[in-house]
């Protein structure tokens, strides 16, 4: 075992998470006070301002470049990948907070924001974890608040059902994953990624066991990223959860799952590329087809986006399956673009739903007449989801397809292309509804915080779609960290 000693750097490394924790404390205190002073949305603004300060601090002070550092006795790793995605999760939580305001049922509840922040802490540790125990703790720290958030509207049966469903699926899959971890520990006697990779190299694991463990662990990660065959929860949970939370689950939570998956495969399984490449490629294929085909028949937009999010997990997995640096970079870029895109889409649904009381496709008919700006934002996000320039989705798709081409997975590219066409079809159907003529003049109320959030999302989508170099530059370092984790 390693000698555990703490250095000042150890504390410095978890400063952002500590700050988040302090913010949680502040929220809970303000929550107690707010009942007396009655300022609308005080909690939401406190959370978002606090997050903004932490994001700003991280952007300014922590840029590790291409350096990596192990902290807390090898539990966590501070590198470009972890810091980039910690910032991205916080941006996701920031936008989600803005969308959560002005909702009667959860927008003025302290525990709602506290839970949200706790899940961000969990995700931040998830992407940095390089030890099985730490990883498991982080996964659970992320998941438990999300179970609560999904079922937060206790007066709504659908929300409660979705929370329960999410909990059951999450608990089972994480138990299976834990079994995989135990096998890893049993055969090697270590929980650290760095030691595990040596154990793999030394042939401590029989080939069959390696594959078994891979399947067990993919169960846990597959749940997080909602890929087939662990996707069953997604449609019901997305539909039942409070809409800002659906968006958060589909973006930040999914991204965290992907980063862990990439880190795990890229380190522990880095020498068995050919084994997992084909497995991931198969999962990607089925996810894309299933997600897109089922999305074709959906009448509820939250459900439709849930299936589309399963399909998008498939596209991102194309990048992962390629296993080359372009693929990892593409997958990360995809996650970033997808974060803004999907948050915008769920954001628009959030606005329409809060005015009309439903997220059915019919409610969006003629949105261009009722709220032109909102309809145009919806158009941008749907086009980006469909992979149309000049939006972020286009370059993301090109990147993952290129990576698969480079890895000689031509068939996978063809599958991706067929699915892009399927996808375009149902996005166009939604766009048609949104832009249809209508006599109806029901008012759509858009609050200030929602406008800010939608503005950030659209800016993100367009910037990611037109300017590539700076963002891909970040991803470059992050990719190096992922692929060369143990080759220094």
């Amino acid at each position, binding site marked *: 075992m390693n000698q555990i000693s703490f250095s000042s750097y150890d504390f410095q490394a978890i400063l952002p998470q500590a700050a988040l924790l302090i913010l949680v404390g502040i929220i809970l205190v303000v929550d107690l006070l707010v009942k007396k002073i009655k300022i609308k949305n005080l909690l939401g603004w406190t959370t978002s301002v606090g997050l903004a300060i932490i994001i700003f601090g991280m952007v300014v002070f922590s840029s590790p470049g291409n350096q990596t550092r192990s902290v807390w006795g090898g539990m966590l790793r501070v590198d470009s990948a972890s810091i980039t995605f910690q910032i991205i999760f916080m941006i996701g939580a920031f936008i989600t907070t803005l969308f959560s305001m002005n909702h009667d049922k959860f927008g003025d509840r302290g525990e709602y924001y506290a839970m949200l922040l706790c899940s961000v802490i969990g995700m931040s540790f998830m992407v940095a974890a390089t030890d099985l125990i730490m990883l498991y703790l982080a996964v659970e720290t992320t998941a438990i608040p999300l179970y609560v958030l999904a079922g937060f509207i206790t007066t709504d049966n659908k929300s409660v059902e979705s929370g329960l469903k999410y909990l059951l699926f999450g608990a089972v899959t994480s138990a299976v994953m834990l079994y995989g971890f135990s096998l890893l520990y049993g055969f090697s006697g270590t929980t650290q990624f760095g030691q595990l990779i040596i154990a793999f190299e030394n042939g401590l694991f029989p080939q069959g066991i390696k594959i078994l463990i891979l399947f067990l662990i993919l169960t846990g990660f597959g749940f997080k990223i909602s890929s087939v065959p662990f996707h069953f929860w997604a449609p019901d949970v997305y539909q039942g959860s409070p809409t800002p939370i659906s968006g958060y689950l589909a973006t930040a939570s999914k991204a965290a799952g992907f980063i862990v998956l990439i880190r795990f495969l890229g380190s522990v399984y880095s020498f068995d590329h050919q084994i997992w490449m084909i497995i991931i490629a198969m999962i990607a294929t089925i996810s894309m087809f299933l997600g897109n085909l089922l999305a074709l028949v959906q009448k509820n937009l939250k459900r439709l986006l849930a299936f589309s999010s399963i399909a998008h997990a498939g596209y991102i997995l194309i990048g992962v399956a390629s296993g080359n640096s372009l693929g990892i970079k593409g997958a990360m870029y995809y996650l970033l673009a997808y974060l803004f895109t999907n948050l915008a889409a769920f954001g628009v649904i959030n606005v329409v739903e809060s005015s009309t009381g439903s997220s059915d496709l019919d409610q969006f008919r003629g949105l*261009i007449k009722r709220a*032109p700006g909102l309809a*145009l934002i919806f*158009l941008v996000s749907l*086009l980006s989801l*469909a992979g*149309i*320039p*000049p939006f972020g989705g*286009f370059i993301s798709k*090109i990147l993952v*397809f*290129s990576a698969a*081409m*480079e890895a000689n997975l*031509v068939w996978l*590219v*063809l599958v991706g*292309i067929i699915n*892009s*066409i399927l996808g*375009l*079809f149902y996005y*166009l159907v939604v*766009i*048609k509804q949104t*832009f*249809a*003529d209508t006599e109806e003049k029901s008012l759509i109320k858009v609050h200030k915080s929602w406008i800010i959030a939608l503005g950030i999302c659209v800016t993100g989508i367009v910037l990611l779609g037109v300017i*590539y*170099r700076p963002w*891909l530059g970040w991803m*470059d370092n992050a990719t190096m960290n992922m692929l060369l984790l143990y080759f220094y």
Partner: protein
Amino acid sequence: MGFPILSITILIPLIAGLVILFTGRKNPNWIRPIALVASSLVLLSTLIIWASYSLESAGYQFVENIEWLPELGISYHLGVDGIGIAMLVLTGLVVFSGVLVSWNVDKRRDEFFSYFMFLATSVLGVFSSLDLFLLFFFLEIAVFPKYLMIVIWGSPQTREYGGMKLTLYLFIGSMIALVGALAIYFASPERSFDLLILEKAGFSLGVQKLWFPFIFLGFAILGGIFPFHSWAPDGHVAAPTAISMLLAGVEMKVGVFAALRVAIMLLPEGAKFWAPWILVLATINVVYGAFIAMIQKDFKYVIGFSSVSHMGLVLIGFASLNATGLLGAGMQMFSHGIMTALFFAIVGMVYDRTHTRDIASLGGLVKKMPFAAIGFIIAGLVSMGMPGFSGFVAEIPIYMGIWQVSPVVAVIAILSIVITAAYILLTLRRVFFGELPPAYENSVRDINVRDKIAIGVLSLFMIGIGILPGLMVPLIESGVSHILALLGGV
């Protein structure tokens, strides 16, 4: 790098579109003037590009090259050769006349003109791209404006079906081409999307033969190649007039232009290998399209299928792979673009006044709208390849070119002239001559000045080039000679 005239040409409609989209609701009176000014500027700047292109130095001119994503060999690389310039001028003309003929669009006018402008940006961008990535970037921007314009302003009976069909077909085509494009990107020694670098890449025979069909067929779907042509008549008929003009007149050229630029120019050996197959499909296009056009009862479908037939001639010109054939193809791209835009414009004018496209219930309209009838006759003569019109300058070289390769195909294709003459004259007689139905005696009025300007401008170019082929032939020839160098080399 001099004055970035290409970028400016591309940006004018984009900016106009954004301005209209964001301010049009509050200032509805400004929408049409902005659109007209923007389209005039586009036309003007394409004409300036035409006039200032130096035939002596030939090659790609007005080049702009800015690094975009150098790690992947993507750059913002613009430049045009002779064929590209012809296409830019075509776009300028069609956009300009498109704005004029849709002057009376009342429904959601701000959105209409802004999407129209976005569509113009997309096409202008494709014709100026010297980077494969950039080409796809511009190409796919067109997806949403064309879809929305068809489903919102199209003809109520078929717009949803036609719009979806057209958009999906075009997206499928571009996606198939994308696979091929990525494949040759990774096969190139210096990984780059730059077309000029890829031209010199010297792909192996296997790569060329394998990926040529992907790229060529993918883009040719956009040009309406048989058996993937059915989107064209359905989509064009469903679309509102200005969009039919732009889609049939220019978007179809985007397809064949990209097929030429990417497939034939980058993979010349592949082109030689697959040319007989292209020839077979294209000949079916020409003859089948003409026959189907003849039996149509709907005025607009006649024109829709005539496009299919004429685009087949362009592809035959490509497949000949010799100087005459390619020259004819280039001329035909320009000539057909203007001709079909004029046809669709006149169909739209007739429909706006009679509210029907059923040929049987029309007749004698020459008394009411003589100028439109003259326009239709001119377009018809171009379509038949009459000497003195641009169609002659385009079609004769195509037939001559293909004669050198396969006289049989030439004979079959030449037959189409007869069929074309038949359906054009039949349609002309039924719609414009004969007895004017009494219902239209009082209700139908002559077309207005703006429509006349649109018809006049388009006709002027068709007659001008027919009488003075020297205006455009050397321009196309300079582009063709570069293609021949690529075909002969390697």
